[in-house]
């Protein structure tokens, strides 16, 4: 597993620099945004990070590594799990980075509310869990070429979720204690999405002939 994560790290350094640039760009825009906590700028970089494993898988397929790795002493479950762990790590790093920026921004503006802040972070975690989780089972089942349709659908969902995010969050915030009540629910939903997606990917990949 460590080997697979190391390989993905080397590949991400090479192929995914653009994600870092985009994240920095979005963070910068969010700092100068008039809204105190604009969800789009917080969610979008995390959603993008969720697509990193899908991207890396397509490079793995192109190089033939997918077939070769099945001949090495890794189980198919390890191959799948490494992609999920790598995706979570990328999303967590991005979430922490955007969280710090937003916390500093709201603190400077004098509107920092820790419960509201945590609620928004958990919401981002749940929503960003959708991005990779939706595409990965299709990609593990059909390969990146045939799984491209799922990828496109995922991008569409990401955009819709990003746009809807602001209004949904705003409505929950209007409910007394809404943020405190919904935070654990969002965590559970996020974990469930990841687990179901991982389980599906494992089953699909085990049955796939390389």
């Amino acid at each position: 597993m460590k080997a697979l994560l190391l390989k993905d790290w080397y590949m991400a350094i090479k192929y995914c620099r653009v994600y870092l640039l985009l994240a920095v760009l979005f963070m910068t825009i969010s700092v100068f945004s008039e809204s105190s906590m604009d969800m789009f700028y917080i969610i979008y970089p995390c959603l993008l990070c969720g697509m990193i494993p899908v991207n890396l898988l397509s490079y793995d397929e192109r190089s033939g590594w997918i077939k070769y790795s099945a001949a090495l002493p890794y189980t198919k479950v390890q191959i799948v799990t490494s992609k999920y762990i790598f995706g979570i790590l990328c999303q967590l790093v991005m979430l922490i980075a955007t969280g710090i920026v937003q916390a500093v921004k709201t603190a400077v503006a004098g509107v920092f509310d820790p419960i509201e802040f945590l609620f928004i972070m958990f919401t981002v975690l749940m929503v960003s869990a959708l991005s990779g989780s939706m595409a990965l089972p299709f990609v593990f089942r059909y390969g990146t070429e045939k799984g491209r349709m799922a990828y496109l659908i995922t991008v569409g969902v990401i955009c819709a979720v990003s746009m809807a995010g602001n209004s949904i969050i705003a409505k929950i915030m209007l409910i007394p204690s809404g943020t405190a009540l919904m935070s654990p629910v969002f965590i559970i939903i996020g974990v469930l999405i990841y687990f179901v997606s991982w389980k599906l990917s494992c089953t699909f990949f085990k049955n796939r002939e390389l």
Partner: protein
Amino acid sequence: MNALEIKNLTKHYKSFTLNNLSLTLPGGCIMGLVGENGAGKSTTLKLILDIIKRDSGTITVLGCSDQADMTLVKQDIGVVFDEPAFPLCLNARQIGAVLKHTYTNWDDEHYLHLLTRFSLPLDKEFKDFSRGMKMKLSIAAALSHKAKLLLLDEPTGGLDPVVRDEIVDILFDFARDEEHSILISSHIVSDLEKLCDYIAFLHKGELLLCDEKDKLLSQYALVRCSKEQFNQLPESAVRHKKQTPYYVDAMMLRQDIPSGFEAFPVTIEDLFLFMVKEGE
């Protein structure tokens, strides 16, 4: 102990069937799988590695027949595919680091020694390697974790004769150890003839023959004669024949060749071509 035992192995595809394959590779030996493109060589290797699912039959690799233990057994198997398949952006140093965490017996010193021997740069990305360099790096990786069995799928395909010869030498070095075995597939029969103790012929998913190379070469001989002379040969003695407007080549067991006929030694390639072409 046999390095590999395959019994009644069958795999069906829409347009191809690997049919009831049985072969045994004794420990410390090299076996060559000879066959034309699409004969079933790669399918056989993938089935051994449990990359694809068999329809029926059993495979015992290094004493283990339980598919659940294959991940553990793979620690002792070195694999080289026809298309070297490391991530394109990784260099040899990074590939070594990844494999170090993959194989419990990874030998970093030996890996670096092989890279030096093959004149492979440490910091050049895999995508910038030539085909020969890629293949040598794959072989270096397969030889750096104290593997007991090498499974090689067309390792010399598409390479120039100098690199091919170099790879054959490397494999010879590996096979010197009595515990080391190699199953190598190729349609470049001359490479296999140099290297192998055993030869298995695969044709359209069927095993035509599997025997010791020296036995095959000493058993069979080629008789070139006119059509009239050919008619004098006992029909049962002629195993395979190739007829042209000018002469007939007959593949025969040496012991069955009547006196007065000149017998020429055969090569494994001759034997394979005779068996395959006559079958068609």
